[in-house]
């Protein structure tokens, strides 16, 4: 019916074209509407008193003085909110044997991390609420704390959750092939223990929520800075006992999310309860300090891994133990074990070997909860694998490109199943490797490195291949019992004036969801993009769907829009055929005009069809009911995930006297299948890479022995800033998925997935002549100087 998707020369061919995001102009003019900007009539402001203890019993709470302060409307404790909110537990059925303690908005009798919200104050403004916090007295009795992985695992370690037998949340094991045998007969074995620091998302807009309960209507409206409004509609409905149809969640502009804003936070649940108790809108915006101690953290893994190779450098087997420390409980509703699960399943993914064993142990400790944050598990799996590959290459005297070329799954060998059980439809490691080699002028960089070393300048070159998980099916959460949709829905209408409106369940966080959906709709229907209006993020308006996370917006949301638009086009052409006395198949739509499919001669504007259908239906043949609104849902079938792949490279310089590292240039060759908007894809890669570079060199949540976060401010937690970040060179290989018509896969995690691995390899490459190695992320000056024995 329509021209091939790749053809960019026909009218309205937007798929594959770099067009700016229509909705970005508002943001550039300072006209964004973020939840933190929102003011409603009679709105009050919440603030929270937080625990200074990492683990303590709450003996008493005295709120009398706070309640008496002028301007204070409500002071609520755990007991107050427990009366109206049911507890939640962050486990999923498909993670067999995992445990977690039930949670309430505010604790009843025990705090489990320093910074946990204990008492809520609602006042006329935030300043008064904070004044009131100073007047609240809480008596605590310290309980033993657990703040490191080893301490938590020791026999006789104090339990994070009293009554539980150990501090283990979840254990999992994979064992495929004959691992022991492979190691026993290997010509070479490389082994290392890696550590990965705790990171956090540090979105520029902190978490923000305005809950507005109208007791007269029994209706809850929540303006929520989140990626997943439908998930929260379901949760607010179920935990506060309000019928789903009377819960509306609106997710407008959001100042960054990266996975961080799709989890349940105690404060957010509390704010809903506070609004219900008061019958007034209540706003809460986390301040930056609160963000650091209450947003989810991620990573915090320690991985011991070894790799067996034959004499020629063929990888034979890997054997892995991943220990990861989460918070005192597992995050709801997506749990805190998905990252570890993805680490052990993604390790070794680019390579051909068959023997794999991995053990995952997820451990509780008295710190803030961890959960899914951009590129869940990928950076760890990638760094472990790619560092071991480089260590093997060095042992065997092979070039890093050569050992990878020898071991990656061949591009013509798909489909393949990884030793960890993932099914790959089609990947392009070989093509990507070749392209990167040329793109980064690898030989030139090596020659320059040799020259500079003679002058005492230590440059490093690192590469890292990766596999990324995108387009998740119900296998991700649905099978575990989570009410998190893997399908999406779209409602596409031809408006009376001949424009198209698309309401769709995927959401916008700035990556360009609305732009690419409008590109797909315009392309598939045959009209100019500016005549397509896309609406997202309001459960009262947009159909229920998974929304945007785990790289599903373009692949699943895009396919939903494509199929919905094709259906609308069929309906429009049916009416056009009746009016024009033609067969629908003889007609097409170009630039908003119905045309003869063969000659492209204009027949009538679609606006005219809309006019007739909406206002002069009497002129249509009897029995005709024009359907100019189509609602359509799409759930991925076929492969449980659409895997993507790519390879990154970087060049950097280590100052061996100071331990400071200068990133010189970064490269990526990436294959996300069909590229809908190349510019937006490239900017996803750049942003993702810089998040990975931040992790590589700067970011780490550092805790004291008493469980206090020691660098919980934007002056102390080092995020990547403009001056230290390199320019990034990008190239693409396109291997579309055949599971959808669109062929698109995700791209949001690709940059973050391998950037830190790349830097780790490059730093080790730079230090190699000095006999120093680094096995820990972030790579701080202290670690470099220690490795070099400079102090």
């Amino acid at each position, binding site marked *: 019916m329509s021209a091939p998707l790749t053809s960019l020369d026909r009218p309205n061919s937007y798929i594959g074209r770099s067009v700016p995001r229509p909705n970005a102009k508002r943001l550039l003019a300072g006209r964004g509407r973020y939840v933190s900007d929102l003011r409603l009539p009679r709105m009050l402001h919440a*603030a*929270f*008193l*937080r*625990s*200074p203890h990492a683990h303590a019993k709450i003996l008493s709470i005295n709120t009398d003085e706070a309640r008496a302060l002028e301007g204070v409307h409500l002071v609520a404790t755990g007991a107050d909110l427990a009366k109206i909110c049911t507890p939640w537990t962050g486990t999923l059925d498909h993670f067999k044997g995992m445990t977690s303690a039930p949670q309430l908005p505010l604790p009843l009798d025990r705090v489990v991390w*320093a*910074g946990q919200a204990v008492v809520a104050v609602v006042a006329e*403004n*935030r*300043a008064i609420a*904070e*004044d009131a*916090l*100073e007047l609240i007295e*809480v008596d605590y009795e310290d309980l033993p704390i657990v703040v490191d992985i080893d301490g938590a695992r020791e026999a006789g370690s104090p339990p994070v959750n009293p009554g539980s037998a150990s501090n283990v949340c979840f254990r999992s094991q994979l064992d495929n092939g004959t691992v022991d045998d492979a190691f026993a007969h290997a010509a070479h074995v490389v082994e290392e223990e890696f550590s990965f620091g705790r990171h956090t998302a540090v979105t520029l807009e902190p978490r923000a929520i305005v809950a507005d309960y109208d007791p007269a209507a029994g209706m809850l409206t929540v303006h929520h800075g989140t990626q997943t409004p439908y998930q929260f509609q379901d949760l607010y409905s179920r935990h506060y006992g309000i019928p789903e149809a009377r819960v509306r969640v609106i997710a407008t502009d959001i100042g960054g999310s990266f996975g961080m804003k799709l989890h349940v936070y105690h404060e957010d649940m509390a704010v809903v309860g506070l609004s219900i108790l008061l019958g007034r809108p209540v706003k809460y915006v986390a*301040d*930056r*300090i*609160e963000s650091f101690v209450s947003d989810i953290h991620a990573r915090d893994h320690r991985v011991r891994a070894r790799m067996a190779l034959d004499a020629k450098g063929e990888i034979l087997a890997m054997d892995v133990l991943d220990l990861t420390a989460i918070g005192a409980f597992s995050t709801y509703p997506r749990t805190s074990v998905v990252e570890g699960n993805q680490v052990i399943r993604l390790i070794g993914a680019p390579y051909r070997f068959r023997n794999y064993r991995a053990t995952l142990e997820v451990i509780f400790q008295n710190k803030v909860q961890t959960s899914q944050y951009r590129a869940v598990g990928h950076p760890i799996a990638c760094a472990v694998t790619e560092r071991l590959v480089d260590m093997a290459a060095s042992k065997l005297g092979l070039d890093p490109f050569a050992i990878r070329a020898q071991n990656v799954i061949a591009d013509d060998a798909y489909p393949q199943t990884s030793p960890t059980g993932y099914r790959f439809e089609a990947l392009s490691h070989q093509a990507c490797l070749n392209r990167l080699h040329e793109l980064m002028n690898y030989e030139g960089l090596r020659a320059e490195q040799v020259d500079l070393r003679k002058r005492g300048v230590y440059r490093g070159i690192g590469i890292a291949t990766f596999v990324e998980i995108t387009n998740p099916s119900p296998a991700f959460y649905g099978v575990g019992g989570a009410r998190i949709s893997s399908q999406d829905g779209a409602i596409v209408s031809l408006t009376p004036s001949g424009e198209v409106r698309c309401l769709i369940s995927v959401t916008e966080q700035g990556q360009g969801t609305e732009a690419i959906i409008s590109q797909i709709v315009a392309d598939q229907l045959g009209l100019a993009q500016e005549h397509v209006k896309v609406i997202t993020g309001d459960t009262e308006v947009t159909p229920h769907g998974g929304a945007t996370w785990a790289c599903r917006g373009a692949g699943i949301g895009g396919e939903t829009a494509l199929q919905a638009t094709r259906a609308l086009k069929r309906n429009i052409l049916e009416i056009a055929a009746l009016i024009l006395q033609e067969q629908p198949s003889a007609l097409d739509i170009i630039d908003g005009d119905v045309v003869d499919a063969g000659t492209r001669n204009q027949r009538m504007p679609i606006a005219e069809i809309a006019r007739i259908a909406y206002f002069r239906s009497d002129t249509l043949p009897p029995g005709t009911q024009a359907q100019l609104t189509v609602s359509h849902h799409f759930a991925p079938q076929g492969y449980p995930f659409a895997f993507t792949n790519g390879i990154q490279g970087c060049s950097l310089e280590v100052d061996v*006297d*100071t331990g*400071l590292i200068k990133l010189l240039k970064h490269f990526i060759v990436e294959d996300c299948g069909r590229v809908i908007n190349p510019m937006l894809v490239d900017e996803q890669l750049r942003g993702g890479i810089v998040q990975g570079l931040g992790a590589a*060199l*700067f970011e780490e949540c*550092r805790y*004291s022995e008493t469980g*206090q976060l*020691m*660098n*919980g*401010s934007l*002056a*102390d937690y*080092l995020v990547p*800033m403009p*001056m*230290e970040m390199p320019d990034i060179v990008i190239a693409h290989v396109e291997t579309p998925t055949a599971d959808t018509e669109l062929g698109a896969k995700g791209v949001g995690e690709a940059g973050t997935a391998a950037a830190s691995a790349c830097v780790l390899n490059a730093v080790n490459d730079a230090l190699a002549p000095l006999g120093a190695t680094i096995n820990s992320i972030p790579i*701080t*000056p*202290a670690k470099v*100087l220690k490795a070099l024995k*400079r*102090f």
Partner: protein
Amino acid sequence: MVTNLASRLVSRWDLEETAVKAKAFSYFRAATIDQALDAHARAGDDARFIAGGQSLVPALSLRLQAPRLLIDITHIGELRGVGREGGYLRIGALTRHCEMLSEPLIAEFAPLLHAAAPFVAHPAIRNRGTFGGSVALADPASEFPAMTLALDAEIEIAGPSGCRRVKADDFFIDLFETALQPGELITAVYVPLFKADQRFAFDELARRRGDYALVGCGMLGTFTGEHIDDIRISFFSVGNTPTRVRGAERALIGARLDAERIAAAQGALEGDLAPPESDEVPPAMRLHLARVLLGRLLGRLGEGA
């Protein structure tokens, strides 16, 4: 520009409060030094002067400080201006960090300050932060307080009992503690004019541009040929106060600047510096970095810097 937040935050959790909006206070905008001093005298210990506010405002917002009265001194004309006075450059306390970069008199007669200025935080903070405020706060990780030591500057102070000048060497006492008495404010800093036979060098090691340095250093030497007649070297981010390294200076004064002397000066740092415990930068590492930086800067000085 917030100082030592990490350590202060930990103690703030001990106070069980989380804040981002300041406690209530009163505000008075002074038109003259006398008005400012008078207001402070009458309000007592609970008053604070505010100039650029780039450190004080966040300290107020986080409720690390909670004065009853804030006395705004930014509209006092007497505190402005840069000009020559005898053998000195008088830098008014309200001179903004950005003016340290743009003012030709600073570039000519106090080039060490001009060289240090781009390292002070970020452009927008330099637009507002003041030289006098930075010296008064005496953050041990800040560039300017340390440079007053290297420059042998004198700090002019106005207070209830009149006006006085204090040598930079006598000004910095302990962590955020200076010769300033309650109710006193800095009116100007006097810097000896840069001379033809002098050389200077400045640099710092920081993980990110504009961050507080892991270690930083500035120096001013007086030369006859390659012979060092005199040199003053001052470090920041090495302890509780900006720190002159007199042992290193002694190793250099009266000698020719060569590799051997540089090594001797580096060796002397161990006696000059006692870096504090820190989980991120252990004392031995900071001392190592100070040696590296000193070596690099002396090397530049040798090249005529």
